[in-house]
């Protein structure tokens, strides 16, 4: 190297590797409308499928007559459960160890449940025919209140498993009971409560919502009778799992099933599991010998594909009178709808809810969950939440605020007093998790200093006095939260999906000219993997990111992976990417040593090259080594330069954050205006700050929607109210607040690049922050807990109950 050699910094910048705001590769096609989404697919002879659905929430099916439907020109066939039963496909296994109906056989269990599948030449004919399938129902009593599910006289929902006392997760207590799960030290916790100086208890409910990506669920199934092969394109966050499940239930050998997830228009957990539409499309293709496309519409999506949350958490905290927490006790009633289609790792029927001790040092805790069936859509999934972490965070953050109020303490002060301390990491939580790393106090202090927390409290106090004097009809609220989430599922010892361990993978191949192709077992639905995985490889191998193609989603070419959800891509496949790259680097080092006629140990890595220690003018760039790998390798090594890694993470990762929000509530209308929202996130090593910030903006907007108005609600006779964008609260750019983002960086000690994942943090932290802010506005008037969502009318009702409308 000499004066002409660009500096390390210059060379690193050229690589566009980790840490830089690399522009996205994906954008080039998306901004031109050249994305490749499932509904863009057109195959010769392709047919369309559409469902006839039940108007009833609970009813027996007496008769199905498809005569009129079949008479619609262009209709080829109408499938019902009777057609699927001989193939044993009228039910499908769920990820939670239950079964779910594909087409209703003897009864329907929720409104809009699938009853018949019409197959036609075009989607208009299919829609017409779906309206003409005549079904005779006998209405049955409806159960929509989970608190009534285990009443002795509750209607029997699941007649198919009525006499099974053994569920997938242990004994069932009642015919509408699914599972009981508990963790923690019950005795020690009960002791702590007996001795406690102060306790609080509150029923904290997280309403049923829906992930609602802008693109609905859809697929194209094409069965080739000659080859005996099935190709299935679909909105799949976990394409390999879909392939394995498809093979197990269809008996088509797995090597003859090709699953392709192309561009996906948002997932947020909605697209993890399998839906009746996928199975019916596959059967329809087999039956007709032609490709069959199924695309659900928005109402179908919101009312039948997997919902999220619906957790009712009776929460208790024990504490000393100066605010040191001594115990946590939570009982959850989990409403799973008609089938337990919860997308959780199989040993975790309540996901990772036991993260509910949150960021606080609870010496003891106990948590118990009971899952029940109701006449609602089946599920639930992790809506940007990593397996019930959103529920747990909402629960503990609300509860800590309630405790602070009882103690007469500032909620930030209470948190500071109880946050896990830096020196306690890795931290063993009372409910069994080992948190990898964190400096919580520094993050909390930074957040408070940045927003001017004390000043805000002073302003709030002045405004409260002003309110009391009748000078204003606005109440100011300040929401403070400090979340810890658990992502990156997960270690094979405790994480599997239907028996497949939750590792993930990366395969990297370098071409002779130094260009790269790499494939991972994950599947982006907007997270920018084509851009970010290349950044990891660029830094690890010293090759420009622009020379690296990333592919995901084709099960024929991508190594096996468990997909993208639960913020797991960076923690698992990101790790696999680094590990595979390091294998390549090790081989390249040997090639370099051979070319430079030195020992490997005489070489050191310098951004994009190996150079001889003490003799830096002698070097070989990775690009040169790539050529050499195809040209001349040392004796004993194979030609070529590639590696694959299957990464079994040793632990989950634990991103965390401190969020502070300021709201102003108009007491006379119930309208809440968000004045300011500050989010500080720590996701460990930051691969692409631009993409991280985009994830935070998006997740906070989803959290805003949830906290301020989203709900999927059922009336007493089982009608789902408002499953369309007329009513389901989807914030526009006008309502959506402006977001301020910030960060600290505490790398994960067990991750090869120290990264933790970030996609879901904002939903985890955002919801309780908004909720705490609205609740905080009313505290000084004696209110302790107003449940979500904080839409206008509920907020107004809370104000009315407090006598504020004179």
């Amino acid at each position, binding site marked *: 190297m000499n004066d002409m050699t660009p500096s390390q910094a210059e060379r690193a910048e050229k690589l566009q590797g980790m840490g830089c*705001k690399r*522009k*996205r590769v*994906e*954008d*080039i*096609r*998306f*901004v*031109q*409308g*050249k*994305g490749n*989404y499932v*509904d*863009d697919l*057109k195959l010769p002879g392709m047919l369309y499928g559409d469902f006839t659905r039940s108007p009833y929430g609970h009813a027996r099916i007496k008769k199905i007559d498809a005569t009129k439907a079949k008479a619609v020109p262009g209709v080829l066939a109408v499938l019902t459960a009777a057609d699927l039963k001989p193939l044993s496909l009228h039910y499908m296994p769920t990820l939670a160890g239950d079964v779910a109906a594909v087409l209703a056989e003897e009864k329907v269990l929720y409104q809009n449940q699938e009853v018949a599948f019409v197959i036609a030449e075009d*989607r*208009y004919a299919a829609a017409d025919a779906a309206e003409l399938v005549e079904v005779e129902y006998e209405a049955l009593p409806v159960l929509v209140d989970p608190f009534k599910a285990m009443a002795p006289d509750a209607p029997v929902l699941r007649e198919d498993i009525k006499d099974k006392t053994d569920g997938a997760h242990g004994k069932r207590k009642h015919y509408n009971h699914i599972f009981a799960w508990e963790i923690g030290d019950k005795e020690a916790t009960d002791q702590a409560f007996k001795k406690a100086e102060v306790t609080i208890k509150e029923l904290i409910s997280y309403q049923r919502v829906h992930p*609602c*990506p*802008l*693109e*609905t669920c859809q697929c194209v199934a094409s069965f080739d009778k000659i080859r005996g092969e099935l190709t299935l394109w679909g909105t799949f966050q976990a394409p390999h799992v879909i392939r394995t499940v498809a093979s197990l239930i269809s008996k088509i050998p797995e090597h003859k099933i090709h699953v392709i997830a192309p*561009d*996906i*228009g*948002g997932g*947020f957990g909605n697209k993890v599991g399998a839906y009746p539409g996928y199975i019916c499309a596959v059967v329809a293709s087999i039956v007709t010998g032609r490709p069959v496309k199924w695309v659900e*519409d*928005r*109402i179908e999506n919101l009312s039948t594909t997997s919902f999220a949350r619906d957790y009712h958490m009776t929460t208790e905290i024990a504490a000393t009178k100066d605010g040191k927490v001594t115990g946590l006790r939570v009982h959850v009633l989990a409403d799973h709808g008609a089938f337990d289609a919860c997308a959780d790792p199989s040993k975790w029927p309540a996901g990772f809810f036991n993260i509910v001790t949150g960021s606080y040092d609870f010496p003891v805790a106990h948590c118990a969950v009971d899952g029940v069936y109701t006449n609602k859509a089946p599920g639930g999934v992790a809506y940007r939440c990593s397996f019930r972490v959103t529920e747990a965070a909402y629960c503990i953050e609300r509860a800590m605020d309630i405790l602070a109020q009882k103690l007469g303490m500032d909620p930030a002060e209470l948190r500071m007093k109880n946050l896990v301390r830096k020196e306690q990491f890795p931290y063993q939580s009372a409910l069994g998790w080992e948190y990898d790393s964190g400096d919580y106090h520094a993050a909390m202090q930074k957040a408070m200093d940045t927003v001017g927390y004390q000043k805000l409290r002073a302003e709030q106090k002045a405004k409260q006095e002003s309110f009391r004097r009748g000078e204003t009809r606005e109440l100011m609220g300040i929401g403070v939260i400090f979340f810890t989430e658990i992502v990156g599922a997960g270690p094979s010892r405790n994480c599997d999906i239907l028996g497949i361990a939750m590792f993930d993978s990366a395969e990297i191949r370098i071409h002779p000219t130094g260009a790269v192709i790499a494939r991972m077992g994950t599947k982006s*639905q*907007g*997270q*920018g993997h084509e851009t970010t995985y290349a950044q990891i490889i660029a830094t690890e191998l010293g090759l420009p990111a622009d020379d690296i193609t990333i592919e995901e989603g084709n099960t024929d070419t991508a190594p096996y992976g468990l997909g993208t959800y639960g913020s797991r891509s960076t923690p698992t496949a990101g790790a696999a990417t680094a590990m595979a790259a390091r294998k390549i680097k090790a081989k390249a080092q040997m090639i370099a040593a051979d070319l430079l006629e030195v020992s490997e140990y005489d070489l050191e890595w310098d951004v994009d090259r190996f150079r001889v220690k003490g003799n830096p003018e002698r070097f070989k760039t990775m690009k040169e080594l790539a050529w050499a790998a195809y040209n001349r390798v040392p004796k004993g090594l194979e030609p070529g330069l590639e590696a694959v890694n299957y990464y079994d993470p040793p632990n989950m990762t634990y991103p965390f954050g401190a969020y502070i929000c300021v709201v102003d509530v108009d007491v006379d209308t119930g309208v809440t205006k968000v004045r300011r929202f500050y989010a500080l996130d720590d996701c460990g090593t930051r691969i692409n700050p*631009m*993409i991280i*910030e*985009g*994830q*935070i*903006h*998006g*997740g*906070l*907007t*989803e959290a805003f929607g949830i906290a301020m108005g989203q709900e999927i609600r059922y009336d007493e006779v089982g009608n789902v109210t408002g499953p*369309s*964008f*007329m009513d389901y609260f*989807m914030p*526009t*750019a*006008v309502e*959506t607040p*402006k*977001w301020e983002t910030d960060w600290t960086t505490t790398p994960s000690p067990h991750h090869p690049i120290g990264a933790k994942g970030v996609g879901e943090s904002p939903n985890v932290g955002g919801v309780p922050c908004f909720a705490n802010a609205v609740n905080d506005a009313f505290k000084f008037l004696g209110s302790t807990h107003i449940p979500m969502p904080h839409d206008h009318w509920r907020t107004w009702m809370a104000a009315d109950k407090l006598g504020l409308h004179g």
Partner: protein
Amino acid sequence: MAKTPITLKVNGKPVDGLVEPRTLLIHFLREQLNLTGPHIGCDTSHCGACTVDLNGKSVKSCTMFAVQANGADVLTIEGMAAPDGTLHALQEGFREMHGLQCGYCTPGMIMRGYRLLKENPNPSEDEIRFGISGNLCRCTGYQNIVKAIQYAAAKLAGAPVKEAAE
């Protein structure tokens, strides 16, 4: 139902079609003309993913029958780049400012941004937010979409463009 012939201009080219009266414009564009840029995201005309520019107006193509577009001049996302492939300022802005993630709302957003900037070449942030209130996004939280449109406004006006995404 007997089909009706229609003639219109799409992305500068004359186009003939044969449609049922009930054929929605979005389906005509996507399925008969293979312009799969405009997308369908809802059933109630809220999401705006289907937005195109028709006779100088931002229109939700899912809420119009193709027969109503007979004789119309339609611009879709596929017609935004220049013939030599140079991206429109909006397309460039969305990339520069990280105004998209999954890309599904993007064609509709850009088409709406196009007409918005013609209505108001120098919009404030609030005017942009109000101007795109007929377009929903689930990924970005809108903040960078606003920046993308501001970038395009500056570029179209010949002003120096804002630095890349913060």
